[in-house]
């Protein structure tokens, strides 16, 4: 029972990953694409946590730990680049 619910949750996460890809290609300014990139990083952190459950190794959560610590750097650099103060 719990496994089936968790698989449905993983499917919904994949669907939202694909839906946020739509914003990358429509409406051309750079800020919109950076928003899509930011949302995709956040979604993939929880996708990594779900892969931890599917493969049954609890050590995979360390990857999500590293990613949650470092993923905001890219977005901050793009924001400073847009603000012309890098």
């Amino acid at each position: 029972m719990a496994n089936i619910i968790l698989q449905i949750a993983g499917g919904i996460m994949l669907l939202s990953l694909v839906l946020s890809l739509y914003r990358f290609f429509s409406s051309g300014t750079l800020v919109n694409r950076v928003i899509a990139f930011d949302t995709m990083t956040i979604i993939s952190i929880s996708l990594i946590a779900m892969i931890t459950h599917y493969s049954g190794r609890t050590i995979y959560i360390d990857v999500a730990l590293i990613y949650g610590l470092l993923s905001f750097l890219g977005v901050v650099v793009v924001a400073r680049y847009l603000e012309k103060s890098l």
Partner: protein
Amino acid sequence: METIALITSFVLILIGLYGILSQKNILKMIVGFSLFDTGLHVLIVTVGYIRGGTAPILDQVTGTSNVSDKIVDPIPQALVLTAIVIGLGVTALMLAYALKMYQEKQSLDIRDFKELKW
């Protein structure tokens, strides 16, 4: 499962090669090189994958007896781990050269640099 990853990595390598060969802008060529690098890393990791194996880190799941039946091959992973870091160094070196070339001629087009032709 390995087949899909192999096809993906091969197409990625081809896209990167097309980007290196067809673009005129130097920075776009470096982007193509970066894609080529990523595809090559995925290819090497996929070659080391064994169906049904888990990560080669010992804990309660793998146990300590007959470990080699349960884990994947750790050698390609160690090779790729080195290759990623070296790839970052190569990319940074290429970007530094591109910056120097831009300061020399005020242009990023590869057709403006004719001194190296013979």
